[in-house]
């Protein structure tokens, strides 16, 4: 009798928790879907950028946060994705529905191949190799013999697509929803992936490669595939970015982009999925706010926005060394102390 009561009450509480969670998700979903209707075109464009960054961050986090391989050069795959999109649509007239996945597959191939030398290089050496990749790709894009394809220093123009099926959406709104669709699919895929057998293998390799190998994990295969997958995510982000901006050129994919992506995953939290949204918001908006703060400081402070950005970055790392996800975890841990303690249902029977 007692057992039954306890079981049913436990079920009720967990059911209530589930419902509250589901309600929160629904409200959040509605806000995300409703946002582009209440904001100016430019804001919608910025939010699309946030979604694009979130996809790229998730890609790098699969590699760095879950698999433990550091890359300072994922801007290169962003560039490959953006340029594949631009070349396919500008030179071959391929529809973006087709070009975006193709960009993803191309980047998967490039990342998979880069994963092989990466197997030989650990830690710092891999950081150097990928850093070199980040510097090399913009130089190669400017390289004269490739001009007919890449458009050289000028880059390539893309036309922003209009909404299909006669939907009453502006181009910016439609691109926002396109990015949102891509992000939803990719977030769903990776949150399932990291819980799967392959995901556990990735994490095991990060934590203890030798133990993982003893357990029968194929180190080389998992690491190269993860590299490819991570590159594919970033490539899709690059393709979406090319489409949203309507323009690709070598300088938009420089070292700064690569470093921003790394900043984003650390600010969001290594090994976290939803933290990447926070990271993306940070790298999209904080440089702008730093700019505004330096405007307040007066006319002479023209060059200071980056100094303010740097100071903010260091302060955030000081306050939350494990990023937003880590801060969230410790907040939840401390917050629980102030809530009424709930008896755990298994005790006392």
């Amino acid at each position, binding site marked *: 009798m007692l057992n039954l009561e306890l079981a049913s009450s436990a079920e009720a509480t967990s059911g209530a928790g589930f419902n509250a969670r589901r309600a929160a998700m629904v409200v959040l979903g509605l806000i995300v879907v409703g946002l582009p209707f209440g904001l100016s075109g430019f804001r919608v464009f910025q939010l699309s950028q946030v979604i694009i960054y979130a996809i790229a961050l998730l890609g790098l986090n699969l590699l760095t946060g879950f698999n433990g391989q550091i890359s300072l050069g994922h801007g290169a795959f962003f560039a490959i994705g953006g340029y594949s999109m631009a070349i396919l649509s500008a030179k071959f007239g391929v529809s973006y529905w087709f070009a975006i996945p193709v960009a993803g597959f191309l980047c998967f191939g490039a990342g998979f191949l880069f994963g092989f030398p990466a197997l030989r290089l650990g830690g710092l*050496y891999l950081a150097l190799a990928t850093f070199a990749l980040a510097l090399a790709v913009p130089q190669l894009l*400017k390289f004269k013999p490739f001009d007919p394809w890449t458009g050289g220093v000028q880059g390539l123009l893309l036309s922003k697509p209009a909404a299909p099926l006669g939907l009453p959406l502006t181009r910016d709104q439609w691109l926002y929803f396109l990015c949102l669709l891509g992000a939803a699919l990719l977030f769903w895929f990776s949150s399932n992936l990291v819980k799967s057998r392959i995901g556990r293998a990735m994490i095991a390799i990060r934590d203890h490669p030798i133990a993982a190998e003893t357990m029968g994990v194929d180190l080389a295969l998992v690491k190269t595939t993860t590299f490819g997958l991570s590159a594919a995510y970033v490539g899709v982000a690059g393709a979406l970015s090319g489409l949203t901006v309507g323009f690709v050129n070598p300088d938009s994919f420089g070292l700064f982009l690569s470093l921003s992506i790394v900043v984003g995953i650390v600010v969001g939290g290594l090994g976290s999925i939803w933290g990447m949204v926070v990271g993306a918001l940070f790298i999209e908006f904080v440089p702008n706010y730093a700019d505004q703060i330096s405007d307040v400081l007066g006319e002479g402070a023209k060059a200071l926005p980056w100094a303010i950005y*740097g100071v903010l970055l260091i302060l955030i790392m000081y306050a939350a060394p494990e990023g937003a996800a880590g801060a969230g975890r410790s907040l939840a841990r401390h917050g629980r102390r102030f809530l009424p303690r709930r008896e755990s249902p298994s005790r006392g029977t």
Partner: protein
Amino acid sequence: MAALIHQILSGLAMGSIYACVALAVVMIYQATHLVNFAQGEMAMFSTYIAWALINAGVPYWGAFFLTIIFSFVLGMAIERLIIRQFDGAPVLTVVIVFIGLLVIINSLAGFLFSYTIKSFDSPFPETMSFGRGYISPHELGSIGVVLVVLALVYAFFRFTPLGLAMRAAAQNPVSARLVGIRVHRMLAIGWGLAAAIGAVAGMMAAPIVYLDPNMMLGILLYGFAAALLGGIDNPWGAALGGFIVGVLENVAGAYLVGEEIKLTVALAIIIGVLVAKPSGLFSRAIVTRV
């Protein structure tokens, strides 16, 4: 042939600058196992200080030594005030702090001294009586200055008690603490020395690449590559790596491909070498016990 010798010699001159940067990077790496991404920007800032001093009428070598002292203090201050707060933080967190420092120093330099490119005079004469067509006086002079710096650093670590204490603190902090070495102070001195060595690199590089806030970015990357190529646990290997990278870069730029993508080619070669010999050319093989 004369052209090739010229390319190799001016490669050695750039290489001496990379060697300095590599040595600075290795010095911090050995003590903390971190690579300081802001090393180049610190050197750039020091070079601006030297420029300001020279403009204020201080003679070159006076400005040179004042700048080295300033850089030493700056390096120690950065370690004390900022880096020490991140003792024991995850590696990537510290990397982000370095990136933060990089943008702060870069933008402060732009703010204080403007982004316009400045020329920076060489202390060495315009022409000299020998070696004409092969090497310029500044190139010869910077190789000489760097060799003197290397010799001084070697002597410091080999023959002075402080150098010995620093090596002990880097190699085994716990035991060093137990025999009464102030490990934290040694770390701060290490940062100061690295900043001072970097400042020498900056002042030698400025007459060649001109003075602007972004002057050290490429140089830092080559210095980093040099350190890894020579073996990051071996300062002398790292310095030698600097000379190798300098020659490689110049010869590849002149004969293999144009100036446009010489950075890419040089780095591809370095990574090729590293794939074949993952711990660098001159480092001991690392054996891990599992």
